[in-house]
């Protein structure tokens, strides 16, 4: 599919480094957890999760995301997608665990779950209070536990500290999205419950259609861009997840965050 042209209708500054970009296409009909390939014309094309049916929430980290930040309402983008496997909603009491901009697809999932009458609890971690996004959105969904690394809001410390306030047996399914080492830490600590955890995994995507091989993970060669990005945690226990990841050249490097 060629990139479909869309126009930006609204930009919301969530924090100084995170913006939500709404566009005008209502036809994409994504499932929470699915992603789009976003073409910033003349710059690059990068994967972004949907943070709502026609929006993305972007953290500025490099050239392409900074170029997204320079766009204004009325400017155009090209979108391919929705692609990949989204989260599958299971049971009637779910827990969302997010870190940083990883909160974006979880907020979308929470909205959909809530709409279906599912009970939603959220545990969200950020570096500091200025970095917090979607506080009100998560509060509207149900109980929200916040952590900040610097202690400026909520529980001081890492997301994993928040786990101690929660009983995993209470939840029918647990959804995780955030920096890889945070997700790894959560999955490790609640390993006995890995069977009911789904994680949204970040790898270097180039094609988005499962043929170039740049996002394949060891040891099975799973194509994250097609068979993910949402992957059952049990499939992440043995292999590269939490240990290394390949960059754009295919070279191995440390996992992020």
């Amino acid at each position, binding site marked *: *599919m*060629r*990139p479909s*042209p869309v126009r930006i209708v609204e930009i919301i500054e969530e924090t100084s480094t995170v913006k939500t970009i709404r566009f005008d296409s209502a036809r994409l009909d994504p499932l929470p957890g699915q992603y789009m*390939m976003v*073409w910033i*014309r*003349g*710059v*690059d*094309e*990068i994967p972004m999760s949907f943070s709502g049916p026609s929006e993305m929430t972007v953290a500025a980290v490099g050239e392409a995301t900074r170029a997204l930040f320079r766009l204004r309402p009325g400017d*155009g983008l*090209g979108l*391919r997608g929705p692609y990949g496997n989204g989260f599958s909603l299971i049971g009637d009491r779910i827990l969302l665990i997010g870190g940083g901009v990883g909160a974006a697809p979880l907020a979308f999932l929470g909205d959909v779950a809530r709409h279906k009458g599912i009970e939603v609890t959220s545990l969200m971690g950020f570096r500091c209070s200025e970095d917090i996004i979607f506080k009100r959105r998560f509060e509207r969904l149900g109980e929200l536990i916040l952590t900040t690394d610097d202690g400026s809001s909520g529980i001081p410390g890492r997301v994993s500290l928040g786990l101690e306030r929660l009983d995993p047996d209470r939840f029918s399914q647990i959804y995780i999205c955030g920096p890889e080492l945070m997700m790894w830490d959560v999955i490790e600590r609640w390993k006995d419950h890995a069977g009911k955890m789904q994680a949204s995994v970040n790898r270097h995507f*180039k*094609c*988005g*259609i*499962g*043929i*170039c*091989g*740049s996002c*394949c*993970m*060891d*040891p*099975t*060669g799973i*194509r994250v861009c097609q068979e993910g990005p949402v992957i059952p945690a049990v499939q992440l226990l043995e292999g590269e997840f939490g240990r290394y990841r*390949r*960059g*754009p*050249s*295919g*070279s*191995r490097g440390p996992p992020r965050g």
Partner: protein
Amino acid sequence: MATLRGDVGGLELENPVMLAAGILGTTGASLRRAALAGAGAVVTKSIGIEPRDGHPGPGIVHLGVGLLNAMGLPNPSYREFQEEIDIGRTGGSPVVASIFGSSPEEFVEVAGGLDADAFELNLSCPHAQGYGAEIGCHPGDVEEITRAVVREKSVPVWVKLTPNVADIVALGLSAERGGATAVVAINTIKAMAIDVESGYPILGNRVGGLSGPAIKPVAVRCVYDLHSALSIPVIGVGGISCWQDAVEMIMAGASGVQVGSALSGGLDILKSISNGISRYLDRKGMALADLSGLAGRQR
């Protein structure tokens, strides 16, 4: 079911349906997965001297008739790739290392640094400056590079040719003179797509190469011409997406086929193609060797 076992380009393969270069070939695990999914051999992503990140995106765009790509030869360099080949081999099929360079010396350095079951020289990528088709369209360079790698390695050396020339047979003959075990045809055809909303070329590299169903008739013709003129085997690639396409390519003169773009529908396509060829041979009471080059013998 008819056996598909046989020699393809100096390798004894369980079946002649291979994974093409640049498709799921960046990691050992994905090469192994393709082998387990039924590939008779797997070809790696093209590997060079230095790590390359590749071109900015979009790197691929799906046009109705096929795929347009300009990945820009991203690869981690041969220094980081032996482990991936070794993991790939655990899938049970031979691993063919696709390699590229800008000179005979670079090709020799990369080939010398890797241990693989065969080498495929990428003298045909249409969208990387100073590499691939930029040198692969000169018959003299093709011969010299082929000879240099053949001298260095004791395993089969295949030469992958570009169709973006007036006379692909001249390139094939150069590879043959250089000592190639087989030629592989074709790499992608130079192409372009423009976003009509904005006027921007869609690919980050602006121009790229076309693969998939649109190029199959071109590939069939190239294979037919090469098979008619060369005495070394020809491996056919370009637009194969079902067993009938593979049979057609073999009838044109291919002794094996590679599948690339069709993998976007999943890895099952590999087995479905080889099973289809087997059933066809059963129905016709023929052996694989009877099919190869049949079109040239029908008058």
